[in-house]
């Protein structure tokens, strides 16, 4: 049941594209005691229905920039295949520590990143004072 709710809450964030998967990874490895490599596999599978079900709303709202998709997905597939191959052969403890380093990097860079000018934003939230 706890797993269901963890999936639900992080799923909302995943639907936003904000890093729900990362939070779910943290939940699984830190609180649920799942080894890093298994947690990563679960996380990837978890994202499939989550993202697939969030996409229709994004498409309907016109938030998908189609011109990006083809080049980004093409190189993305190459990158993800090679990295997944390497990671699944790696020592679990090492993978876990590297993940921690990655989180620190992401946290710091997110915290100090300047908000971009929301050209496509018509919903009235205050992303930028320039709007």
């Amino acid at each position: 049941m706890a797993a269901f709710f963890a999936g639900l809450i992080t799923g909302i964030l995943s639907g936003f594209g904000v890093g729900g998967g990362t939070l779910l990874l943290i939940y699984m490895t830190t609180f649920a005691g799942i080894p890093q490599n298994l947690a990563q596999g679960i996380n990837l599978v978890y994202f499939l229905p989550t993202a697939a079900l969030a996409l229709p709303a994004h498409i309907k709202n016109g938030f998908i920039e189609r011109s990006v998709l083809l080049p980004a997905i093409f190189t993305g597939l190459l990158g993800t295949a090679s990295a997944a191959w390497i990671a699944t052969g790696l020592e679990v403890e090492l993978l876990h520590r590297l993940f921690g380093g990655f989180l620190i990097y992401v946290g710091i860079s997110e915290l100090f990143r300047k908000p971009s000018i929301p050209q496509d934003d018509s919903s009235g939230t205050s992303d930028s004072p320039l709007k």
Partner: protein
Amino acid sequence: MTKKKSIQAAVAGGAAGLINGFFGGGGGMLLVPLLSRWLDLGDRKAFATSVAVILPLCALSSAIYLLRGGLELSSALPYLLGGALGGILGGKLFKHMNMLWLRRGFALLILYAGVRTAFFV
């Protein structure tokens, strides 16, 4: 889209792919800032487009984890069900969210977890 922008999209996608495959997630955290910075997408477009890019990457990398990582689908099931419901809600709630505060709260949480994971647990 200009040639330069296509190349930037390809580089951003490739980098997100590496992270996605290596850590089994987190590709979007790299992709979103790159899309908004290099391709001048607004926050909302960057987030939503990132979901569309990451989905096929996850399909491929999860297959590799299944083949090589000893992953059992049954252990993923409860997360999957919650995630599916959350995904629908997330998509619908998205246009009402204040992105700036969402990101800041998120950054603090990630930072806390990062220090814990790298040095403690």
